[in-house]
């Protein structure tokens, strides 16, 4: 479906994407990376808005740059808003479908169906300026879905959506994937991607750091240096125990919560029950101290550079 070979994109001296090689078959994929990691540049390359400085990009076997035939099979929802304030969702989606090559009548039908799919039927004739952020997101998604593309590319589509809206759009996209269509979904939140697909691409600093399933990502998080927070009946004794067992590089105790920097979280999780049983200590709560993925990305970047 998508093939990138040694793709580099430079903005002057700034690297947007760095020596990116990737082959994706048909299916649903999540592109996971922190803000500024190169996700949008990658999607701009895939949708033909940017030319790679080096390397080649192929989508459905063709170069996406100025490729009218390919654009008929591609649906794209960018992260930026870019809607016309004074125009209604219906007029805008219909207009974009006419640009897609549909007749006026076909465009009306496609716009109505797509807006109904994303739950915008009631408000579709109101000007976009009167919409909430969530309604604008739904409208953006409708324009990408309306011409029934083979490949759907979404850049942070859940931004600004409330939990109900997220659930509804997740259902829509699951149904889409269920029809055997392909999806590439960019987000900086693991759980957003996890709700749609088990196939992940991890990107940071313009590089593809890793790819795999959700289990692989979690396993990576366990296998890389991390901070773990533990609430215990005796945090000082537990800290001493973990230092004695060489399971912690450093410890700190704040308001009864012990935070441990461990080089091998996997070993800690594996052996902690045995150590607790032997020492008679109790742990009532345990979680990763840094729940964002930034730590994982930092670790993967170090791993990529050979620093770990």
């Amino acid at each position, binding site marked *: 479906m998508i093939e990138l070979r040694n793709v580099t994109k430079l*903005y002057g001296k*700034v690297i*947007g994407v760095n020596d990116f090689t990737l082959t994706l078959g048909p299916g649903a994929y999540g592109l996971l990376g922190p*803000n*500024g990691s*190169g*996700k*949008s*540049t990658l999607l*701009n390359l895939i*949708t*033909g*808005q*940017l*030319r790679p400085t080096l390397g080649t990009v192929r989508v459905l076997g063709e170069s996406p740059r*100025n490729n*009218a*035939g390919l*654009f*008929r099979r*591609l649906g*794209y929802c*960018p*992260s*930026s*808003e*870019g*809607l*016309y304030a*004074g*125009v209604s969702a219906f*007029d805008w989606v219909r*207009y*974009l479908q*006419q*640009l*897609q*090559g549909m*007749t*006026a009548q076909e*465009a009306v039908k496609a716009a109505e169906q797509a807006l109904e799919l994303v739950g915008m039927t009631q408000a579709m004739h109101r000007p976009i300026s009167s919409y909430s952020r969530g309604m604008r997101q739904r409208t953006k998604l409708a*324009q990408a879905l309306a011409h029934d593309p083979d490949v759907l590319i979404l850049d942070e589509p859940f931004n600004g959506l409330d939990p109900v809206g997220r659930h509804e759009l997740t259902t829509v996209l699951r149904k889409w994937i269920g029809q055997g269509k392909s999806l590439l979904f960019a987000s900086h939140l693991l759980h957003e991607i996890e709700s749609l697909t088990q196939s992940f691409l991890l990107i940071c600093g*313009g590089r593809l750091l890793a790819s795999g399933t959700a289990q692989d990502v979690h396993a990576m998080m366990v296998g890389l240096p991390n901070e773990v927070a533990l609430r215990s009946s005796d945090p000082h004794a537990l800290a001493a125990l973990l230092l004695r067992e060489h399971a912690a590089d450093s410890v700190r105790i704040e308001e009864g919560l012990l935070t441990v920097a461990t080089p091998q979280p996997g070993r800690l999780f594996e052996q902690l029950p045995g150590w607790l049983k032997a020492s008679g200590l109790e742990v009532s709560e345990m979680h990763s101290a840094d729940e964002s993925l930034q730590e994982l990305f930092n670790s993967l970047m170090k791993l990529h550079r050979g620093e770990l």
Partner: protein
Amino acid sequence: MGNVAAVFLFEWKRALTLPRMMWWGVLAAFPVFIVGVIRFTTYQIPPREFWAGMLYALIPMLVSMLGMLLWATPAISAELERRSWVYLTVRPNGGTAVLLGKYLAAVTWVIPPTLIGLSIAVPLADTSDGWRLWWTMARLVCLSCPAYGAVYLLLGTLLPRRALVLAVAYTLIFELIVALVPAVINKLTIQYRLRALLVEWCDLSFPGPGGRPSGVLALIGDDPAWQHVMTLLLLPPVLLLIAVAILRWSEFSTSAESDV
């Protein structure tokens, strides 16, 4: 062509708002106001040559040029600033359709108020040969609007981030200064062609030998009218082709700078 028509109709529908209609009215009213002020503040009705020059300066020169500058120049930059460009370019030949559709919308938006203003201003001037003046100015408007539209659209495509600055600089330097330089370079301006057609079609005469002294000839040339007309008719398609080529070659990413 279907997607060009879609852009054209969409742009026209978007233009039917109160602020834009007011601009439309201002374009139509401006020459009428100036002609009215001159007509009712002078004791003697100015001669035909005066009205020809005044109507030319007000309508094919000022109103057409200003109208096209305001409408055609930001065709691409407005979409980039609004970040709506990306939705248009991921459509089959979307960028080209937007460029051509917006060009047609701009030309058809500017010509009507210009002709309305002309149709009121000419009778108001109460000059002899009013019909000939109207017919000359109407033809000049229909040649100047498409030509200026294409020039401004090309400038806006060439440098969308500084489109209006570039268009104003072009207008001041080329169309208002270079066009009046009595040298071969003035032949590169649209004003030179329009001015020559004005003199030819209105059969204006000037003090001096044969009614066309050498000073005037340097500003209007002695090429036949059909050459000027052909140049003005060929200019828009050529410039639009160049604009489309630039558009297809350019990269207009709308990603936030922080969101690489």
